[in-house]
């Protein structure tokens, strides 16, 4: 039970937000994580307060996935080579393709197909695979503690820090060149005037 619903949380934990990405979209990028990015508020649980909140085990697409890692999905070992991954992907893609699925199980098969597709996209790219592997090692502990969520939240937040640090340096860089040139905005003209009058 690596991605099951957290014990103790209410049924509301599985509530699918109306704005959720529909299931048919094959997400670009690596999104197959337990915790949706969206904050769910701390009502889901009797957990203690503040910095961490429980997240339902609903992925971005809105349905609960009860299986294991991408590796298990493709049926290969964690150290699998690129060829192995490709072969497994092709096999499974052929099996689960909507056009060849049995008519009464199209939906389930289509879902699987999308998952397989995403698994391949993640694992076939070495950079993405490395990140995925790292998360997986933490993810294995998921069902047994909430420390992962805590770490993940911290990691999210530290990720934010890199982001805004860059933004601040970019802001400073831009401000060097801001008021030069033709076609100045009103604000730029006022700043120039103020600068000139303070020089006088």
């Amino acid at each position, binding site marked *: 039970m690596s991605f099951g619903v957290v*014990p*103790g949380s209410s049924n*509301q934990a599985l*509530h699918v*937000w*109306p*704005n959720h990405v529909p299931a048919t979209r094959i997400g670009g*990028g*690596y999104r197959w994580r337990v915790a949706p*990015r*969206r*904050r*769910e*508020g*701390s*009502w889901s*649980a*009797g*957990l*203690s*307060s*503040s*910095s961490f909140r429980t997240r339902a085990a609903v992925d971005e697409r809105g349905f609960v996935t009860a299986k294991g890692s991408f590796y298990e999905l493709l049926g290969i070992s964690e150290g699998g080579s690129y060829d192995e991954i490709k072969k497994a992907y092709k096999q499974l893609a052929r099996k689960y393709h909507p056009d060849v699925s049995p008519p009464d199980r199209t939906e389930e098969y289509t879902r699987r197909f999308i998952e397989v597709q995403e698994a391949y996209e993640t694992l076939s790219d070495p*950079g993405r695979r490395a990140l995925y592997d790292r998360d997986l090692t933490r993810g294995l502990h998921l069902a047994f*503690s*909430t420390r992962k969520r805590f770490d993940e939240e911290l990691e*999210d*937040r530290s*990720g*934010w*820090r*890199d*982001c*805004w640090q*860059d*933004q*601040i340096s*970019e*802001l*400073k*860089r*831009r*401000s060097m060149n*801001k*008021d030069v040139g033709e076609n100045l*905005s*009103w*604000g*730029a003209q*006022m*700043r120039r005037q*103020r600068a000139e*009058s303070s020089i006088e």
Partner: protein
Amino acid sequence: MALALPAFFFPSQKPSLLSSHWLGGADLHSYQHQYRLLKTRKKPCVGASLSERGEYHSQRPPTPLLDTINFPIHMKNLSIKELKQLADELRSDIIFHVSETGGHLGSSLGVVELTVALHHAFNAPQDKILWDVGHQSYPHKILTGRRDKMPTLRQKNGLSGFTKRSESEYDSFGAGHSSTSISAALGMAVGRDLKGRKNNVIAVIGDGAMTAGQAYEAMNNAGYLDSDMIVILNDNNQVSLPTANLDGPIPPVGALSSALSRLQSSRPLRELREVAKGVTKQIGGSMHELAAKVDEYARGMISGSGSTLFEELGLYYIGPVDGHNMDDLVTILKEVKSTKTTGPVFIHVVTEKGRGYPYAERAADKYHGVAKFDPASGKQFKSSTKTQSYTKYFAEALMAEAEVDKDIVAIHAAMGGGTGLNYFVRRFPARCFDVGIAEQHAVTFAAGLACEGLKPFCAIYSSFLQRAYDQVIHDVDLQKLPVRFAMDRAGLVGADGPTHCGSFDVAYMACLPNMVVMAPSDEAELFHMVATAAAIDDRPSCFRYPRGNGVGVPLPARNKGVPLEVGKGRILIEGERVALLGYGAAVQACLAAASLVEQHGLKVTVADARFCKPLDRALVRSLAKSHEVLITVEEGSIGGFGSHVAQFMALDGLLDGATKWRPMVLPDGYIDHGSPADQLEEAGLTPYHIAATVFSILGQTREALEIMS
């Protein structure tokens, strides 16, 4: 006493820090107690009860550092660690004060760190800090010299519950309604530029307030003018009020919230930046410009429509930022402050409403607005009343109507709790629309619904409907579309003060040619008026009802009202010489006045006009002809019910004889916040005032004086 310090007030500190502050005397035991609390806190305990975990002070909590801060200038030399401590003490102070007075708790708790960081980094009052809506300004007030006045919060002659220019020079702009801060901040920035000054201007606006159009109007203009200013988005993912319906939290309304949430996902962007940086390194320093361009495009691509929206409007986006991390906040604010010529900067800060007080964090409504409560248990002291609020009665009436008529739909603007439509949405989830804080859109949206044959009920507070006045005239009244307006909080509203006071709705609705304007005098009348409004299908209609509870009359069977005859009032007491013609809740005051007057031997007539438009002309005529004096009473401004009666009387020749007409309306000024009784007293509309007026018009000044003393 008071030394078993709640662990929650020091969320991120280790026991060693606790010990350096609090160890002394016989504290070893409590220190160990705290240590144990802190340790256990880290593990998730499903179902642990809060009472086992910490204590909250019923008396004033100790705040050694906060005690040394009277004004922001005292904060200038504090270290980050001290600022964190200050934030914690500030939090406990707010919890303590709001527990004693009631007020807006959750929002204030969410911005404690932000407030501390702002006042540390900037120099108020020269630097202008504007708080949108203002209900989250309690930490700001405490830090700007008003801490000792906090016990008077939201009471007569005390602190306002919102920012108010006349209260303090640190309150740069008055607020109460939402989404005005960016506009005002831009005005202040441009004014500063024209005057040649150099201060900073900062607007703090919440994600709920961002759903209103005015915020975009302002950002659009700010991007164009390019004046230096800072807009801080306080994003706590709560866009509707109270931030839940009856069954749990509301998923955010509108597409904007998901865009904001996507912004918080930094991972893919970070990766791309790493790659871009790597590329720059390899190519060499001269490709600096190229890398910057890649950065810009990358941001647009990866972050999706979110930050690009603000960037396209011309604001420089920074974020997301952890709004409870003092380090981060102070760093960013100081960096932005020290950068010259930035143009408008938009900082996206992520906070948690109710942070630091577990009862608030766990509550579905995050303790947005609370009555007095007990800090130790979080329980609010709500007095039990025999009758329910008019809001609840309205919801029940609407539900009863909607049961039989499938076309009835309800619209509100982010006020599910305040309008009572949370009950409605539970019963009819597909027929209730929350448009976010967008009253103008709500009205025109209702007009569109009416075009298609539906029966929309727009439940918007009287003062909030002011914002949508042109839509009411142009989209609804002019085209004679049958939109029904349920205006709650009409008249004086008590502790929220003049910004929320619904004094003008009679005037602004009754002057519209096609509008039917009515007001119930008690809750049974409210049920009937909801039914009447539902039945009026060829023109718009509205009805107003006050804040507060019903008077205790019997309700119609199964909550289903009976439509009234439009344009007909009723006489409640038959008397002589003087007629009191009341409109809406004022009728109750008239009845009380009548019993006061009767003690002095005069029996007056009391009538309930019910309709301001169309006016019950026969009733007014008969009252005017059979009485010496006609007094019209309403809890509204000049230009309302009384004026319509006077207009009719004048045109009908009823003022040409011996009849005297006197109006009793709200005075020509804004009545400050206070208890409803205090406000009514100040307005001069209590039963005593009405009774005294009766006697003074009759020339019986002695009786008038007796009543008033």
